């Protein structure tokens, strides 16, 4: 077996608590499908037949996915605050080969073979996917003013070909300067440093990286600890090469550290690659006298997508953005014959825009216009309602004469007659009074507000 796929669906969605306090993140509807469906669909299209899904018990109970793959659910309890690396450590018994790790909030139409081919061809330790980050242009409910929350930038250094990952640092870890080791520049004189790249959290990892993770219990998160560690390790020499230790004590310490070093986990069964590169006339760099790949054993590669969709739905703004783009994606995949579900009862077909998705069993009254919106299942929308740019989840009731713009309305909400909602987030089970007027507000229940 070449790969095993792991989808991390236990995470909380800490950056959009307004939404995720009532609905767990993997179940958030995007285009009327649970968020978890998208990475699973990506794997299914690529040809995977089995996937390990790490999730929480309550999520697994509520999941109802139609997929031909065999899903192996591993439940972690809610109390343990497990990072992504901890989850991998939890299931390491099940992993027998190289592993492909995905996050549940990834919506993309990337050709998976491009990422995996880098991993195969260069026998890489790590291969990941990135895309130029897309600034959400539309207003996000609950945001006061135009000021966007400042995200910490990531500095990514790639080599001339754009495939080899040389450097990775987050602005949060740096004081004022970006420090680049001389050894990196000696081996790769031309390095392109990019900011504004979004990490898709799709990693191909070799088995020995997982073994290293198991031994090294200090690493809790993949993205913030393991990946930068691997990128740094590319240019540090294995401890066996460091000679000249006279002090016995130092020897002892080094030995302990050595056993935690990743080089000790790289088994030498790569003997089949050994004689061939000596004879082969290929080199990944030119201009110096060094061997191919500088004889480095740890290699990290990245595929930077230029076109196509790639979203990580971890903020409200990205959630809304993803919902806008998903109808196109679903049409391209050929999954929705028509965006309007067959069982929806719509009185005025003409008033429903062509880029709106209507879920099953939804009733839409007369003279109701729906533009660029996504409406879930079992909703009841009465007459003379105007809905523009909204995301409406399941079982929502909207009475007559309402006007909704740019809002997100969660499950089971009820909006009474004549309400005028603009750029708001209405939480689950909320009830808005008649003729309510809300602009740019977040209305959630008080018990949800108490959760920190």
């Amino acid at each position, binding site marked *: *077996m070449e*790969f095993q796929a792991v989808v991390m669906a236990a995470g909380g969605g800490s950056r959009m608590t307004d939404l995720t306090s009532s609905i767990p993140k993997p179940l958030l509807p995007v285009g009327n499908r649970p968020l978890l469906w998208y990475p699973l669909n990506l*794997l299914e299209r*690529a040809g995977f037949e089995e996937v390990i899904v790490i999730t929480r018990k309550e999520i697994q109970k509520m999941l109802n996915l139609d997929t031909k793959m065999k899903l192996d659910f591993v439940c972690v309890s809610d109390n343990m605050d497990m990072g992504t690396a901890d989850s991998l450590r939890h299931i390491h018994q099940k992993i027998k080969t190289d592993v492909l790790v995905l996050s549940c909030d990834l919506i993309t139409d990337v050709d998976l073979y491009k990422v995996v*081919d880098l991993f195969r*061809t260069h026998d890489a330790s790590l291969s990941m996917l990135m895309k130029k980050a897309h600034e959400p242009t539309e207003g996000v409910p609950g945001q006061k003013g135009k000021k966007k929350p400042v995200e910490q930038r990531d500095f990514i250094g790639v080599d001339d070909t754009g495939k080899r990952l040389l450097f990775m640092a987050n602005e949060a870890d740096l004081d004022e300067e970006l420090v680049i080791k001389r050894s990196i520049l000696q081996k790769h004189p031309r390095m392109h440093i990019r900011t504004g790249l979004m990490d898709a959290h799709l990693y191909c990892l070799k088995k020995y990286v997982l073994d290293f993770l198991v031994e090294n219990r200090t690493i809790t998160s993949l993205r913030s600890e393991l990946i930068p560690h691997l990128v740094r390790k590319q240019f540090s020499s294995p401890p066996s090469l460091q000679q000249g230790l006279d002090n016995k004590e130092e020897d002892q310490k080094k030995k302990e550290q050595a056993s935690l070093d990743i080089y000790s986990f790289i088994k030498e069964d790569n003997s089949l690659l050994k004689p*061939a590169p000596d004879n082969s*006339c290929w080199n990944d760099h030119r201009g110096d006298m060094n061997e191919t790949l500088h004889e480095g054993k740890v290699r990290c590669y990245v595929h930077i997508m230029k076109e196509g969709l790639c979203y990580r739905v971890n903020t409200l703004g990205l959630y809304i953005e993803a919902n806008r783009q998903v109808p196109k994606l679903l049409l391209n995949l050929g999954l929705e014959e028509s965006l309007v579900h067959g069982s929806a009862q719509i009185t005025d077909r003409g008033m429903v825009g062509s880029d709106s998705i209507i879920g099953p069993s939804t009733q839409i009254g007369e003279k109701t216009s729906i533009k660029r919106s996504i409406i879930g299942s079992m909703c009841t929308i009465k007459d003379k309602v105007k809905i523009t740019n909204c995301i409406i989840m399941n079982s929502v009731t909207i009475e007559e004469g309402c006007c909704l713009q740019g809002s997100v309305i969660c499950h089971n909400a009820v909006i009474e007659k004549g309400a005028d909602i603009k750029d708001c987030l209405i939480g689950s089970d909320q009830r808005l009074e008649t003729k309510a007027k809300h602009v740019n507000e977040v209305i959630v229940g008080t018990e949800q507000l108490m959760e920190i």
Partner: protein
Amino acid sequence: QPSQAGAHTGTSPPKPAHGLGAAVGGPGGTSAAPCEGPEPLEGPEGSPCRGLPLALGCISRRDWAQTPHSSPAAAAQPTSPPASADGPGDGEKPAAGKSKAELRAERRAKQEAERAQKQARKAELSQAATTAKPRQSPTEPQSMVKRLPEHVQVDDPAAQRKLAKKLERQQVPLRQDYGTKVNLFSHLHQYSRKKPLTQQMSIPSTVIHPAVVRLGLQYSQGIINGSNARCIALLEVFKQLIRDYSTPPNEELSRDLVAKLKPHISFLNQCRPLSASMGNAIKFLKKEISCLPDTLREDEAKEKLQDVIDKYLREKIVLAAEAISRSAFEKINDHDVILVYGCSSLVNRTLCDAHAKQGRAFRVIVVDSRPRLEGRQTLRRLVRRGIHCTYVMINAISYVLPEVSKVLLGAHALLANGSVMSRVGTSQIALVSKAHNVPVLVCCETYKFCERVQTDSFVSNELDDPDDLIVLRKGQAQLGGWAENKSLRLLNLVYDVTPPDLVDLVITDLGMIPCTSVPVVLRVKNVDQ
């Protein structure tokens, strides 16, 4: 139901029942095609360039040698299981009771019946189809069916359809050709590196072993280059395949393993056409597998195969390189100026060893050519050892040749008429050296000797990705839009053929022989086997 891979050999002449006379040149049609003889024929009148290559003569050496090699060892074509069922099995199985013989007789009768049926069906179909090529129909049963290998028939739709069917059956994706080809080479495949074969395969590859997928990717992306490197990598991957193989119940390892190897070989062939060294290695391995005695247990058989592969690697590649290095050392004199071209692992090793022996002081001129620029790798390896090197491009050879005392070249394959098939540009160097009266020495191991005959570089060659010729200068890609220009074609040839009269000496592990002795070596090799 015995799994017979011979199902597609429908057009073969019916084999005589005793099996030993199995046509050697017969229905071999495997991907070890480079070493099979195509036959001289006139092609359809439509294509103008068809007559040219064939008229120049791409003849099987068996034709003019006129001895069908019916040695029993050679007849054990492992690709035709019906024959091999009769062949090696006969001599080596002890009479283990009537039941086995009865079963075998039954199987043979069933196979003959199936084959007769298939012949009848094919005869019906061929009456309907109008193929101008007589080679598809069996002429006389005794004459060997000569076939052009698939990889030089890209512009023939019937052959391509056959290939597509075969690949579909083996569940190997078909790689699409890319870009318009130069007319003279339209009979060859031209692939793009940006469209790897894995695009059409499922990600955790199930049909093809992951190590083979990785190898195929490394071939097609050019990571493993050079005929020795490719062959070594191939054999190592085969060792892993054999390690991971387990015989299904009711199957014999000797037959099933060969059948299991075929899709992998097709896959590698689609990634990059097999080299002559790889073809010979595959032939050898298939023969070894089919010659396994049935008495061995599975793990013993697997271990024996691993040993056999190790022995082949050690003897034919590693020790041969050492032998060649020693022989070549005698030819290197003090204060020699040696010219080398491109990057040949053998030549590099020879020069490094010669320098290490410290008996002779010599310097090297490395000649390089675009687009591969392999000379730089040679330069890197030689300069690291302290050899004094000069680096020129191929258009400067007439400038440097007056000071050169000998030219040392590597080879991709040595053909049966003594021609040397090597990286494109080698024949130019040999030609200009001849004009300057500089001796040309070719280093080549015997396992690269090939039974094909070629007198030109057009018939059988390899077209590399034409986009490699696009060069970025100051941010502008000259030739970047070549595909839109209808009258522009890019040609990136990989190999060329040097005629034997331009080569003075071939240094092999059997000694130093003139080019014309290559057929003798081949004959000796065949008799040995």
